[in-house]
């Protein structure tokens, strides 16, 4: 927007401030349908308007990318970031900014050609800040998803000690490459740290196995073997067994057991311990 139009917009915004805010809030409140209090909305709108007025001040031409508009960009980022975290939709966030158009139209009739041309110019700028808002909204959402994925990664890969020299990894949920990698590294490190010659990978909680996941499990077993530890896989569910065979994955000489209990009994015997059930006590 050139300097002249900026000056006109500045005058318009400052002289009709109250009416503008009223219209703006009314437009936006309609779309948000009571999910945000009017007082809160008014505060946000006034904040954006204040920043816009500040950016238009000084007689230079108004552009979103310049240093003059730094404050405006910060306010918009904060607004859209908050909206993203509070679970508002993209439309609802964008409308908060586009409400300014309606408000401008309401306070400045466009019945002559000059006014109309001005309005189109303001409108273009509002589109620009609207796009900016949408972009930061998307960024905030992406950051949210990345955070959650990381939290999921951390919480889902414990390596537990089952017995002297026996550690186990109960895998739960969906295994993707990133998680499989983390599991693999953590398991191998635990083997070294605890000097356990046996590891059990329990996949009872794994909902599906594809070739890649199977490949990762196989690699883990191979790596453990290279380091001098034996791996047993337990808890393969019927569908998964069918998938493994259907995909033609070779588990070859890797020991697989039906349950974690069987696997533990197996490694204890392999480690030289006797596992036996005592005779049932007679009930007198």
């Amino acid at each position, binding site marked *: 927007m050139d300097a002249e139009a900026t000056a006109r917009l500045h005058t318009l915004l400052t002289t009709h401030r109250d009416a503008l805010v009223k219209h703006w809030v009314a437009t936006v409140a309609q779309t948000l349908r009571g999910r945000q209090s009017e007082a809160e909305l008014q505060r946000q709108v006034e904040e954006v308007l204040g920043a816009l007025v500040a950016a238009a001040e000084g007689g230079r031409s108004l552009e979103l990318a310049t240093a003059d508009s730094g404050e405006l960009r910060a306010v918009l980022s904060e607004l859209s970031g908050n909206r993203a975290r509070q679970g508002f939709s993209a439309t609802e966030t964008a409308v908060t900014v586009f409400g300014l158009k309606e408000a401008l139209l309401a306070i400045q009739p466009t019945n002559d050609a000059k006014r109309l041309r001005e309005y189109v110019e303001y409108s273009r700028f509002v589109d620009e800040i609207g796009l900016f808002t949408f972009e930061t909204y998307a960024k905030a959402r992406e950051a949210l998803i990345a955070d959650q994925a990381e939290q999921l990664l951390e919480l889902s890969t414990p390596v537990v000690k089952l017995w002297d020299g026996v550690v186990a990894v109960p895998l739960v949920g969906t295994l993707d490459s990133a998680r499989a990698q983390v599991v*693999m*590294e953590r398991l*191998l*490190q635990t*083997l*070294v740290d605890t*000097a*356990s*010659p046996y590891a059990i990978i329990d996949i009872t909680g794994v909902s599906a196995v594809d070739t890649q996941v199977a490949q990762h499990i196989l*690699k883990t077993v*191979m*790596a*453990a*073997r*290279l*380091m*001098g*530890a034996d791996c047993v896989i337990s808890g393969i569910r019927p569908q998964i067994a069918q998938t493994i065979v259907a995909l033609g994955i070779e588990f070859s000489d890797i020991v697989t057991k039906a349950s974690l209990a*069987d696997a533990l*009994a197996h490694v204890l*015997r392999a480690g*030289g311990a*006797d*596992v*036996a*059930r005592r005779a049932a006590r007679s009930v007198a």
Partner: protein
Amino acid sequence: MDRVPVLTLGDILLVSIQIDLEDQLAVRLQEDLADRIVATGAHGVIIDITALDIVDSFIGRMLSTIAAISKVLDAETVVVGMRPAVAITLVELGLSLQGVRTALNVELGLRLLGRNRADRLEPVDADAIEPLEPTAAT
């Protein structure tokens, strides 16, 4: 020139590799080991690679060769202390240490060799050797 020291522990030879192995050094280690196995009549060789950050195909092949040489001289080879990162790399490269036995640390390696010797030579304690029946556990 550098040499990798070979230590004698009873009838077991212990080699701890602490430096980067070059071709020359590796060849010399092979020769030294063969000599020492014959000289001491050792029955086991433990190669400790805890200090190695990288095991490439060259070192992998060297370990296999040492294992094969020892085998001919009636000594069992155990490679101990491989780091997780090294193991992962070897698997990713598709290298398996053919004919080499592995253990997590020197202690477990010694135990492994001891067990094999016991199996081969001294069936003293019948209980210890007996294959464990799948008792009524399942």
